[in-house]
């Protein structure tokens, strides 16, 4: 059975909005995705019918809310094929997930002189925490080069690991600038063979592909709810049980303790050890609805649909005079950065916006990558499950107009 993706647009109320009197063509899903009715309804239901603080309540509302909240942990464990629900830690976003690892694992499992390796195409979220760790803790930060096509330079990878001091490979599964997918299974095998752990930034990949912790053998995996059609304010850290068990807490407070006395407090078991204070209850339940929604459609169907979109975009956009697409990875998904000969990225974005077309312009939180690509900023179109071929044609047409203005 073929999924009717055009019909799914009806699930997203915002797509009916007009912008500057034009139909909204939303091509900024890589920054954050729009929300389907099912997610909105789930959050409303919590607030209207079943809400109280979780975990410690002995009354009906608290029990039911705790059940709904904890059920999402199971759901995520299944969604990414984790070994156990206890490997799922709730955070605010992927950024916090990585910082949690850098603070807790980084400062306890790494010694000064150990190295963390990242690639040239990381989001600041997967770079700055390791810089801060370096500056505070004396670890080294090493950079793995990418090729001109925007793929990992395997030779550079081997050099970076050659002296055996790299203890963590922190790498994106899909670049938010170039759309490149990285071969995470192979990278995990490589890291493990070299005595290192691997942290996978799954922010972009989790939206577009089936994720499998068991197959990937990831040590850490992070993503954000808001890019996966879920609410803001909720993110996920997956880590292998034996790693989490050995990690000290990140933040202190309620819910993460076993016992508290002035002299000494003891910590709850993972995942609770890492969840201090009142969690994002409503948002977690909303994320659960988002996961039900995408698994209902099927990640494989979504991947096929988006592959069609991406191929179409890669076919038509180069036809726009003066336009150059950045990166040319073999395995790439629906995130396309480009520059134009005479038009700066900001001018492109502003002019497209007046036609109802939303794209992003700037360094996309990847400044060092901009340097590597020899640009200061790019325009970026990115696709979601609700994106249509017609919208990509509208983008191409809009860009023609931009070209004419600056010709």
């Amino acid at each position: 059975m073929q999924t009717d993706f055009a019909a799914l647009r009806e699930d997203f109320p915002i797509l009916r909005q007009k912008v500057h009197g034009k139909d909204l063509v939303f091509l900024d899903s890589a920054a954050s995705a729009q929300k389907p009715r099912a997610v909105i309804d789930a959050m409303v239901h919590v607030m209207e019918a079943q809400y109280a603080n979780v975990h410690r309540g002995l009354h009906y509302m608290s029990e039911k809310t705790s059940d709904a909240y904890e059920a999402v942990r199971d759901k995520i464990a299944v969604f990414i094929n984790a070994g156990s629900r206890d490997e799922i830690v709730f955070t605010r976003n992927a950024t916090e997930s990585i910082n949690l690892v850098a603070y807790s694992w980084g400062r306890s499992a790494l010694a000064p002189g150990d190295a963390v390796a990242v690639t040239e195409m990381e989001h600041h979220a997967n770079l700055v925490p390791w810089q801060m760790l370096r500056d505070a803790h004396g670890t080294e930060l090493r950079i793995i080069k990418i090729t001109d096509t925007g793929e990992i330079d395997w030779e550079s990878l081997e050099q970076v690991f050659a002296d055996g001091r790299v203890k963590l490979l922190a790498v994106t599964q899909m670049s938010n600038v170039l759309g490149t997918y990285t071969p995470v299974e192979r990278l995990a095998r490589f890291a493990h063979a070299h005595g290192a752990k691997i942290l996978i930034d799954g922010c972009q990949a989790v939206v577009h592909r089936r994720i499998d912790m068991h197959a990937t053998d990831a040590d850490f995996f992070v993503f954000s709810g808001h890019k996966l059609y879920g609410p803001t304010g909720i993110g996920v850290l997956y880590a292998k049980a034996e790693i989490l068990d050995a990690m000290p807490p990140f933040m202190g407070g309620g819910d993460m303790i076993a016992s508290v006395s002035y002299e000494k407090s003891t910590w709850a078991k993972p995942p609770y050890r890492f969840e201090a204070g009142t969690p994002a209850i409503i948002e977690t339940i909303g994320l659960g609805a988002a996961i039900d929604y995408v698994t209902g459609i099927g990640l494989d169907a979504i991947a096929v649909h988006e592959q069609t979109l991406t191929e179409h975009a890669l076919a038509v956009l180069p036809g726009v005079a003066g336009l150059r697409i950045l990166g040319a990875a073999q395995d790439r998904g629906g995130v396309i950065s480009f520059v134009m000969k005479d038009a700066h990225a900001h001018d492109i974005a502003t002019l497209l916006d007046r036609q109802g077309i939303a794209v992003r312009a700037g360094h996309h939180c990847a400044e060092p990558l901009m340097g590597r690509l020899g640009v200061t900023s790019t325009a970026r179109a990115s696709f979601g499950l609700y994106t249509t071929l017609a919208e990509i044609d509208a983008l191409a047409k809009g860009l023609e107009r931009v070209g004419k203005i600056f010709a």
Partner: protein
Amino acid sequence: MTGLYQDIVLNRTRHPLHAGKPVRFEAQATASSPICGDRVRVYLSPAGMDVHHEAEGCAIMAASADLMASAVLGKNPEMVREISKNFTRVVTTGEADPSLGELNALAGVSEFPSRIGCATLPWRALEEALANV
């Protein structure tokens, strides 16, 4: 659309009159926007208020830098600060100011709040250069 990218703006972007590093200058300053990566450096010879610029960024910012250099030519520092203030008002309110001449070409920026900073960036650099004299 023409509200923002008027011919005068596009012309100044493509064919600036005051671009490039002059052989002689007395002060310089750089302003940049962390949000979008735009960056402009201005070179100032206070006698005659002669300003040149190196603008790396969008059309609005580049045009604004060049229009600024034309507008301040021959003025004294106090007048420059007055023009700067009036210009900021024009790009935030969208109301033209007859005293500003060609600078009013950027009045359309007011409709694009996220671009106001592009238009005012060169002025921030110039103010710093003046302070550096």
